[in-house]
């Protein structure tokens, strides 16, 4: 039986938390051991979930691309430029620049507001996935 990388990290985290950390007398070093355990646990969880999270992100992004192209067809060049950049990607990070451009255009504008309405559920889904690891 072979352990997965995620399993190994989880076991390392448990050993540091339960065996190594408590044996350290210096408070600072003991805190560092505890933090190492926390970080290894999160990395383990991240490895476990990474593939599923990436698939979900890509699916969300593909659907959003189609909808944004319709909503933002008459947007100014600054927004069009960032939209085009986003359309060439398969992850959410380019939405950072697009959101900045939308806010600069003005969210009182109905197209910008509609675009925000489409983007925010995708961001919500993404942060929910990240929270599975963070908490």
């Amino acid at each position: 039986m072979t352990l997965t990388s995620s399993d190994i990290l989880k076991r390392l985290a448990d050993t540091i938390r339960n065996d190594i950390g408590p044996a350290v007398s210096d408070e600072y070093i003991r805190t560092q051991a505890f933090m190492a355990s926390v970080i290894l646990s999160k990395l383990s969880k991240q490895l476990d979930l990474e593939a599923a999270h990436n698939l979900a992100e890509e699916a969300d992004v593909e659907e959003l691309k189609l909808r944004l192209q319709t909503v933002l067809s008459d947007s100014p060049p600054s927004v069009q430029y960032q939209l085009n950049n986003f359309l060439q990607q398969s992850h959410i990070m380019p939405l950072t620049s697009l959101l900045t451009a939308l806010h600069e255009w003005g969210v009182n504008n109905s197209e910008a507001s509609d675009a925000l309405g489409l983007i925010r559920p995708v961001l919500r889904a993404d942060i929910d996935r990240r929270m599975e690891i963070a908490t």
Partner: protein
Amino acid sequence: MSKKPTAEVSADDLEIIISNYLAKRLEVSGNVSISDLTRIAVGWSHETWLFDADWLNNDGEHQRLELCLRRDPGNALLREASDLEEQFKVLKCLEKTDVPSPKAYWLELDSGTLGAPALIMEKIPGECPSPWRKEGRKFYTDAAKREVLPKSFVDALCSIHNVDWRSCGLDFLGVPAMGKDFALAEIAKWQSLITDSAHPGHPILADLIGWLISNAPSTERLTLVHGAYRTGNVLIKSDKVSAVLDWELQVIGDPMYDVAYMLTELNREDTDLLSNVVPRDLFFRRYEANTGIEIDEDKCRYFQLLYAMRSAAFWMSAAGLYAQSKNTDLRLARTEWSITVALERAAQELGY
């Protein structure tokens, strides 16, 4: 408490350095004895050491000072946002006011003198229970029942907001124009920290910043603002605030910035008591009566979103320090996931 050596100096070496330094500063011909030198293992910014200094003056009389040393190790969180020189100047200005704060004695910016840039100030008696620990929260819950600390805690905040900041020289902090300048300057400050962190961030942060810029409130009354007024950042003795600490984020700005920090759920746990110790109605009544400032809850809600941005910026800066190998403290590495928590909160506050 930890005796862990810093990157630059061990506790034993530091004891000798301080002794020699004080002998010179106090113009003592004999030895200055340093005792109980302890590094406080809290805080992520400057190193903090507590100690007592004893010596005989030139008439042979015993003298004692109880002191606190803050050192800049050169790789601390927020060191660009709050340098020791500014902290020293603020404490000097506050000596002329009613704000309970430690007396500042000496500032040494030359690393050769105390091993790193440092300031020495008065060690004020009192305790500082952590509101993030169970025993700390019990301390505050019990104190709330005795009804003395809640009033003192509010009064100390009022004393900050009532400071005549211009006459005591605090205008060196920079004075925003009336209107949106204060909010916009705070956004710019934290944006700069985010940029310096070299962290990729997340689109929610762009959405949040865009919203903050579009909805910046107008400030019509400027006060001294502490910037992080909560339990855990004040010393308490006999149920009264003996000193307000952590003068690292202070600005001249909108008093609602501090009030929002009092009201936020982020600064309390398992309780309705503001900052774990003050009943909400007592706070509103006493704060408004003592300052003459009406609490604007809408503005406070705005500033709570600004705090979400600030939290994200802190954590990005911390994670960046670790990622860039500037600081090896694993607590900083851990903050990578705290960014997610801050942004999730921001998304909720933005309504999604």
